[in-house]
């Protein structure tokens, strides 16, 4: 779960990281404060500064104009429903700090930048020497030498305070099972280090270990977005594309291979849908709904389902498909490649329902493309 800045900052405060005094202002609320502030749109996407969603204002008049502007904005499809108003601080220097993990190396790491407020991904690519990555052991935790190295690299004039800020950030990362905690920038002010921004992403898989925290954050989030605070437990990924062949696979790898083969054979997928994890008839059914009844997915002319079962049982997949076709009277051409665990049982269920199946992936792709072509031809001849 990605947190809004104001949520991240409240966690920072709990872990001893200083943040500017601030208050949240929701849409349609009348601000009961004045004076020089910085107003920051509360959205989950990055790049707010460049998008003009961070505004400095001196007077009440400027404040009202800025609020009106911010509340009319939509940033990367996210409407602005809340604004954080913060006191302005005197900045002597800015740094970048984060605790994250490198999945390919299988270790957590501290990342330090000697200058902050920058696009850190671009900086890492263009000037890797300006970023220090310090992997540490997940069980032991970062050592004193990690903190000292981080402070030396940053060139912090008050290394002990810098290390204390980093240590708080690490404890937050560890104790909340966060995937990422990032401060960009961490400002050095005459009074000490202050986190001017907060990017925190928690691990949804760790929710059972932090029920209260997650519940509180969901309610806060719902207060901003107006959406339901309930978690969405679903492993299905469905990404709309621009073709006309509906595609469902039981693995991302074979899904991508099928996407490639479809294009090679002159077809285009309307979506990329994979069921993820271990599935059931219900998930198969839900995946078909997600592709066929999804207003964001273009209208499909045929449906290609690619299944190769290891942990997934083909009898269960067949049950899901047959149930969907019966319930909805689905009438478009449907090509199902079904093989693997319990395939004999699965094939039998499909045969009894009068649904064709094939065993070879390329043949299935050719059939799906052919079906689409024929259907397109039918439509043309009627016009």
């Amino acid at each position, binding site marked *: 779960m990605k947190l809004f800045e104001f949520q991240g900052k409240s966690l920072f405060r709990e872990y001893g990281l200083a943040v500017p005094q601030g208050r949240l202002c929701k849409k349609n609320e009348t601000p009961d404060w004045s004076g020089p502030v910085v107003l920051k749109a509360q959205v989950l996407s990055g790049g707010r500064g460049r998008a003009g969603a961070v505004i400095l204002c001196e007077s009440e008049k400027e404040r009202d104009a800025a609020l009106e502007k911010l509340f009319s904005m939509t940033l990367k499809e996210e409407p602005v429903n809340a604004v954080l108003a913060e006191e302005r601080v005197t900045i002597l220097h800015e740094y970048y700090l984060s605790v994250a993990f490198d*999945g390919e190396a299988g270790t957590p790491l501290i990342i330090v930048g000697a200058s902050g407020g920058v696009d850190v991904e671009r900086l890492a690519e263009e000037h890797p020497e300006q970023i220090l990555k310090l992997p540490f052991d997940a069980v032991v935790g970062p050592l004193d030498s990690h903190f000292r190295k981080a402070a030396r690299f940053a060139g912090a004039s008050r290394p002990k305070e810098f290390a204390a800020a980093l240590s708080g950030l690490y404890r937050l990362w560890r104790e909340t099972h966060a995937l990422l905690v990032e401060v960009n920038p961490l400002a050095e002010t005459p009074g000490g280090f202050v986190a001017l921004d907060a990017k925190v992403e928690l691990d949804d898989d760790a929710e059972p*270990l932090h029920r209260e925290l997650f519940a509180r954050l969901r309610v806060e989030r719902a207060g901003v977005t107006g959406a339901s605070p309930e978690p969405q437990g679903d492993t299905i990924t469905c990404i709309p594309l621009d073709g006309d062949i509906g595609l469902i696979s039981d*693995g*991302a790898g074979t899904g991508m291979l099928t996407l490639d083969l479809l294009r090679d054979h002159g077809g285009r997928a309307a979506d990329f849908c994979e069921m993820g994890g*271990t599935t059931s008839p219900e998930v198969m059914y839900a995946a078909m709904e997600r592709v066929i009844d999804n207003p964001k997915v273009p209208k499909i002319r045929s449906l290609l389902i690619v299944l*190769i079962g*290891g942990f997934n049982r083909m009898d269960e997949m067949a049950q899901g498909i047959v149930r969907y076709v019966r319930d909805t009277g689905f009438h478009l051409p449907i090509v199902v490649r079904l093989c*693997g665990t319990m*395939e004999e049982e699965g094939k039998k269920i499909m045969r009894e329902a009068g649904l064709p199946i094939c065993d070879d*992936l390329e043949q299935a792709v050719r059939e799906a493309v052919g079906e689409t072509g024929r259907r397109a031809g039918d439509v043309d001849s009627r016009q």
Partner: protein
Amino acid sequence: MSILVNEATRVLVQGITGRSGSLQTKSLLDFGTRVVAGVTPGKGGQEVCGVPVFDFVDDAVRAAGGVDAAISFVPPLNARDAAIEAMDCGIRLLVLTMEGIPKRDVLEILSCARFRGARVLGPGTAGLIAPGKCKLGAHPTRMFIPGGVGIVSKSGALSYEIGKTLTEAGIGQSTVVALGGGPIWGMTQKDALALFNEDEETKAIVLLGEIGGNTEIDAAEYIARTPVKKPVVSLIVGRSAPEGKSLGHAGAIIRGGKGTARSKAEALERAGVKMAATPAEVVARLRELRL
């Protein structure tokens, strides 16, 4: 030989009494894997498909007279303790099939594995199969025959797909390894390549990759700077994926020019790897090698 496992490998199933644990135990036994014991806390004394169940790993190891590998179907929140318990009892190969283990727990498992010199496959992996010898995962048996091609894949399903294609073409496999979809990996493509490189039975290696992340680039660098004695054929899926969209696997995100199918194929080709665009081309590249 094969890599990681062989016909003598004694296997422990953790979480053996659960729905997937018991179903998969049957499938492993049907294949011929030597499943010597199972563990589920509180279920000691039971049997699953004739395999004795214990409360603790050390009891299981003692009763079996030794265990070489453990495959785990333990629920995600108990996975860390189960994995570390297995390593504490001297088990040096773990296959973690579950998805949804908290990432901090995964990082701690991997840290413990480094300290103990254990190998971890996964999490979220379909496991591995050495056709005719040992299966430690979900690979559908009929899609694999013994032979000289080693396959390493992130995606389980893709490893079945290519195994099936090779088998139908009469090309057998030494070991087929699925690493898991990420976002954190124990064993990597590079680790598998190093093992295949030293395995006498493996005559050629098939490296299956996908868009996103950098592990294929790391693998290419490894091939370029190490004397890899075996020819490597590679297929990178997702070449037709639209840029900037994440397709399921957490690793499968294209960022700029990094991690695209093209950049990976180029790096691999520079390292001397023969590229294939489709499963049929993997077969063609392997036939060209005249092994």
